[in-house]
């Protein structure tokens, strides 16, 4: 019984921390401030250590004051080093957070007797002890303390983001517009940094620095691969955070390892899956789009080869399949795939082992040829010598829309192209 409720409290703590981080992280990623988030979550360490030393306890208020102070110091130092001391921005982030983190580690180890924290715990937290860290009220247990703290922080973050949603959104996407409609960008910046500091502190002792860094960056970036709408990205980021907290717990108990670490592994897995399979941004989708495009280009080139041969011999010429495949200027397998596609579209027909254009194929081919020669002529008019216009036209002919074709036709007219070849007339119905 205690085992089950213990797991529940641990998972709940994880979910509360990761959803808070996912919510704020979305804005950090959008504002290209992920590394400042990273720096912040390292740099609050000395603040926490000093608060421990001064107050002698894990009370949240001194810890928050200490951490918020150092969060502010980090932001200010990075800015001073970068703007006033003329250090490159990435380098000044690097100098500041490593120095502060080093200071924190030295404080913790030097006062190991007084500070109930050790350096490993700083990195990956003590979430497993959550069920025993109870909040007491007049002798009665109200449940684990971290759950209350992280729950409070999540509610606060949600309310602030809801309250300032419009401001955050405009300041993130279009700082110039934000300034012109009277949004105080500096205020929004420090509001966000303040929320990140608070969340970092609240998460620190239970989930550790790495989980905070990972959850501030990875869920937001992952969600950004799936959607273009801010509200959806935020919801997805929080979902990804929650899912990795839950799955991470079970992974850790299955494989006996750090719970916070396992949560990071899961969110990394979600990122990898998104990287591969997201419908617009995913690697597979991109590769598929590229394949489709190169097949299209290969087909176009084959049609053009046939129609040019027609023009030369002034009759419906035919090519051997290998000649045709050779004209596509792509690698063998793709050329054969493109050829198969042409046949499926009934743009070519085969007789006596030779390939020729069908009626539909001829129309399609002439339209391509028209686009090609219009572009050549246009480039020539712009001053490109006639022996330099073929290659650009070869590259662009596949992308000229009907509207652009009409515009080019109006600009160039139906004449001859720079090599003196006839531009096929428009008005062929496709």
């Amino acid at each position, binding site marked *: 019984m205690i085992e089950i409720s213990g797991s529940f409290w641990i998972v709940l703590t994880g979910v509360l921390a990761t959803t808070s981080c996912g919510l704020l992280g979305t804005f950090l*990623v959008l504002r*290209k401030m992920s590394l400042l988030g990273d720096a912040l979550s390292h740099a609050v360490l000395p603040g926490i250590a000093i608060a421990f030393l001064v107050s002698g306890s894990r009370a949240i208020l001194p810890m928050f004051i200490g951490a918020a102070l150092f969060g502010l110091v980090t932001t200010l130092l990075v800015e001073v080093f970068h703007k006033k001391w003329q250090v490159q921005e990435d380098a000044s982030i690097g100098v500041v957070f490593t120095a502060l983190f080093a200071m924190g580690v030295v404080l913790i180890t030097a006062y190991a007797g007084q500070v109930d924290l050790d350096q490993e715990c700083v990195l990956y937290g003590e979430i497993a002890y959550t069920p025993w860290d109870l909040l007491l009220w007049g002798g009665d247990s109200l449940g684990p303390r971290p759950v209350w703290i992280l729950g409070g922080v999540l509610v606060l973050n949600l309310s602030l983001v809801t309250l300032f949603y419009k401001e955050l959104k405009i300041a993130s996407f279009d700082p110039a517009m934000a300034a012109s409609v009277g949004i105080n960008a500096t205020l929004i910046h420090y509001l966000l940094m303040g929320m990140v500091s608070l969340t970092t502190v609240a998460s620190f002792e239970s989930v550790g620095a*790495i989980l905070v860094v990972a959850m501030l*960056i990875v869920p937001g*970036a992952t969600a*950004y691969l799936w959607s273009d709408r801010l509200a959806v990205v935020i919801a997805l980021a929080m979902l990804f955070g929650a899912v990795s907290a839950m799955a991470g717990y079970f992974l850790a108990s299955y494989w006996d390892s750090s719970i916070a670490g396992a949560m990071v592994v899961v969110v*990394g897995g979600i990122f990898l899956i998104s990287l591969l399979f997201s419908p617009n941004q995913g690697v597979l989708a991109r590769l598929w789009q590229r394949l489709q495009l190169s097949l299209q280009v290969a087909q176009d080139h084959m049609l053009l080869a046939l129609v040019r041969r027609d023009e030369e011999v002034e009759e419906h010429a035919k090519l051997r399949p290998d000649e045709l495949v050779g004209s596509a200027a792509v690698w063998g397998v793709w050329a054969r795939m493109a050829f198969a596609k042409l046949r499926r579209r009934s743009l070519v027909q085969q007789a006596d082992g030779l390939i020729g254009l069908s009626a539909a194929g001829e129309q399609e081919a002439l339209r391509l040829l028209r686009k090609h020669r219009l572009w050549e002529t246009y480039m020539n008019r712009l001053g490109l010598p006639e022996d330099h216009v073929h290659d650009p036209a070869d590259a662009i002919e596949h992308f000229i829309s009907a509207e652009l074709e009409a515009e080019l036709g109006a600009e160039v007219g139906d004449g001859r192209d720079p090599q003196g070849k006839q531009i096929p007339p428009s008005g062929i119905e496709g």
Partner: protein
Amino acid sequence: MLENALRFMTMADANVRFVLFGSLLIGATGGLLGSFAVLRRRSLVGDALAHAALPGVALAYLWTGSKALPVLLAGATVSGVLGVLLMQFVINFTRIKADAAIGIVLSVFFGIGIVLLTHIQRSGSGNQSGLDKFLFGQAASLVEDDLKVMSVLAGLIILVLILFFKEFKALIFDPGFLQTLGYSTRWIDVLLMGLIALTVMVGLQAVGVVLIAAMLITPAVAARFWTEQLNKMVMLAAAFGGTSGIVGTFISSLAPKIPTGPVMVLVATFFFIVSALFAPRRGVLARGLRRRGNARRETQQHFLRACIELQEKIGEGRAWPVEELAIELGHSPDKVKRIGQQLAKAGLVARGDGRFALTEAGLQEGLFVVKSHRLWEHYLYYRAILDADHVDRPADEVEHLLTPEIIIRLEDILARERGIDPAQIVTLHGTGSQYRRGGRE
């Protein structure tokens, strides 16, 4: 503590010598390569690489069961490089920006590393204590064999660095030039990344993955304040890094509980702050002083110009009362007195009876300033087509900066294009600047 210090100072203990040599090596290679990493804007990539090395250390141990440094470092290199490649892939293939890509690789690989380390620790398949020093580093644990590995790596790094110094230099300052020499910038970049990776490996055991990036970044940034020359910067960064290594090791040898890495980082940070404040040209103090000197020179030159313009308005050879100068300059009388005293000390004005008059030297300098001012006004009016009432203010600022060469060119342009006689620009009996009153004709 005293005993520890003594042990350290006398270096009687072979172990102390190893540790010292090791930290020197780490600091120096970190500084050397860090200069290139920082100038190429790859400083945080080094951080990602270091974090990404952790799972490699753990996996190498899991697979081979060996804790020998070469084995662990081989694993670290593979996973570190894999991390950087993945990062580059994410930047190139998706809309995710570099900062987030660095953060993703850094945190996720580190998370994997932590999972593996804690698993090794708990599964009882081995004692983790040999591995967890890779988190924060433990210089005290360096033994002779480790040093051999580190020396070989450092030697390799320095050799490649010397061989490709020119190429790296071109990569940083002028990649286009590198291409015209027939090199592929991409491969030189990859080579540099490889060296950065090896540098991280040199320091991994003693400084740890969390903070090794600081040994790349901080000494290099500190060195940047002292010089504008790459080879000097590289040497200086190596010296800062090496010194941080030695001092850091010494300090942490006094308190063995404190891990070495953080202390080395703090010493390097100290060098950074001292450099940033006190470096002669780029330092904060030097720049502050220079700015103050410039501001002082500007107010003094305005004072001289005011004397000449009063002279133009009212007549020759007079000493000007403080009150009149104060109105002309828009300062308080006290401030006018103060500036006047500075100028009197420099021999540019003479004072007496609450009045100031230009000396011969003051007159010459004043004339030069007035001429600069008016030439610039003309230039803005004719060439930049500013309105007549918009040229005085910019000229106020620029008059202090014009060199005699620029003056000659301005005179030449205005004489050729507008027929303005340079001799008529300041005459001491004219009516002053023609641009104070109205708009464009």
